[in-house]
């Protein structure tokens, strides 16, 4: 029997390790390091200690401070509005699709899944027109004069609508698979106990799909924190920067046409990453605890 040579494993896992080091490990470490410097993407960064963090967190005279808090606030608003809908709506659809007497399920599923394959920029072009003041569908249908993308709260509503429209297909399929895997005996014994459809959902379906729920909730939240395309294309951050999310400020500071302020942008990115990590951990903890007790 021939064992593999000493260097054979290196051949199989080595190439990916190099990719991992170059495109994940080094940039992650450098991203944290840069947040303590005055890096401008071009020159060599100079260590400034906690200055960037002091500026964005405590110096209320600085524009970076107001950008950071406005961006973080808007990102959290987006997460708070979009994530519950991105969980509840696909769950309702999955339950309806798994109803034993409903037919044409693959047609419904396809129609709902397709927007997920539409790139967000194409979707934004179409939806912008739908919400357009003079030419759009919405105002024509409802006879309203609303300038949707330039007035609050409508600007947020348009952003949330396009996000939910484009984003629920994946979660829907995960929930369908989960509900499909629930043993039919559980439902039958619940029925014998006289449980109606609502109690069956709460007592049988929900506890049985605990893992898919945790998984989708954590993943959807992580995605929502990185929101960028929808506000950029639908409202361009307006009106009066009320939908400018943190990712838009980070990109502007680091990559705009003037001199790059990558150090401050990195500090903002690290803060965003930290908030995301903490929230994911809390979500995981609460969901896991609730589901086991």
């Amino acid at each position, binding site marked *: *029997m*021939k*064992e*593999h040579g000493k260097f054979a*494993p290196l051949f*199989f*896992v080595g*190439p*990916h*390790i190099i*990719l991992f080091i170059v*495109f*994940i490990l080094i*940039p*992650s470490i*450098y*991203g944290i390091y840069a947040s303590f410097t005055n890096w401008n*993407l071009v020159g060599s960064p100079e260590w400034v200690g906690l200055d960037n963090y002091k500026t964005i967190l405590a110096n209320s005279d600085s524009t970076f401070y107001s950008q950071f808090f406005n961006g973080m606030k808007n990102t959290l608003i987006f997460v708070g509005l979009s994530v519950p809908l991105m969980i509840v709506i696909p769950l*309702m659809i999955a339950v*309806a*699709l798994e*109803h034993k*007497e*409903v037919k044409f399920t693959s047609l*419904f599923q396809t*129609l709902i*899944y397709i*927007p997920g*394959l*539409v*790139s*967000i*920029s*194409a*979707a934004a*072009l*179409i939806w*912008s*027109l*739908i919400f357009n003041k003079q030419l*759009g569908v919405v105002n*024509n249908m409802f006879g309203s004069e609303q300038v949707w993308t330039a007035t609050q709260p409508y600007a947020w509503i348009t952003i949330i609508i396009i996000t939910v*429209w484009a984003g629920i297909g994946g979660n829907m*399929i*995960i929930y369908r*698979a989960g509900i499909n*895997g629930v043993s039919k005996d559980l439902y039958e014994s619940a029925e014998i106990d006289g449980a*109606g*459809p609502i109690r069956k959902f709460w007592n049988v379906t929900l506890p049985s799909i605990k893992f*898919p729920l945790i*998984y989708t909730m954590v993943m959807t939240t*992580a995605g929502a*924190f990185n929101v960028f395309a929808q506000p950029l294309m639908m409202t361009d951050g307006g009106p009066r920067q009320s939908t400018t999310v943190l990712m838009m400020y980070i*990109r502007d500071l*680091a990559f705009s046409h003037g001199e790059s302020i990558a150090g401050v*942008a990195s500090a903002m*990115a*690290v803060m*965003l*990453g930290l908030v995301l990590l903490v929230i994911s951990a809390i979500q995981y903890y609460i969901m896991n605890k609730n589901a086991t007790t």
Partner: protein
Amino acid sequence: MFEKIKVSKYLAYLFLIIVSAIWAIPVLFGIVTSFRSQTEVVNEGFRLLPVNWIVENYVNILENTSTAPIMQWLWNSIFIATMHTLLVVVVISITGYGYSRMKFKGRDLLFFTLLGISFFPNVVNLIPSYKIIDILGWVNTPWAMIVPGLAGMGNIFLVRQFMKGIPMELDESARVDGASDFKIFSRIILPLIRPVLIVCGLFSFTGSWNDFLWPVIVYTDVNKMPVTAGLLLLQDVYGNYRMIGQLMGSAILAIIPTLLLFFFAQKYFVSAINLNSGIKG
């Protein structure tokens, strides 16, 4: 009892029909509008069907090869997404083999360390990643979008998990016959992991095709960018809704390739997630 099921059935239908309609109408609206003339859209407002079907919008889109070269963008996207997908499949299959079928010291520790690091929020590595692409001379080249995504751990995790379901006896009996790792990999394992590779490939393709933030950062050259980044420019090029038909036509052209892929590979898209949730659940 019987009545109850009936009511819930109609409720389910009603809900599904409303949702599907809301989900389908924007795409249909985009398609219909792309065949209407600007004057018609402005004068008649919203209509279910055009008064006159015209194809001029598409002719104009295709003739504009300077400020909005959409065919070039589509080609760039196709090249990037295809190359990325092929390389993903190669990398995840050989790496997955290494982490599940080979024995070496610290193998699982290494794997889970890399997996743990990859959970780190990737917003932090965005700016340095750009710098690395810049140092490599890849700004405004397809490689900026093809290569960095190959470092991800998610697909390797799936492949490794899938390979664990393949009995080790297969490898061992082949090894007794004198087969090398390379032979075991290519002749035995590779054919067996086809389903998971197809799934990962499809998601890599659509993920790459629809990526937005990264291409907006790494492409400044109009002729080099993929279609998602290009569409951002269109808001200015056909700006302020002076050329609505062209705007909608471009959006529709950008959608077609992934839609075609979906219709040809629909069963894999759905089985895909079964596999995914099967592991998580």
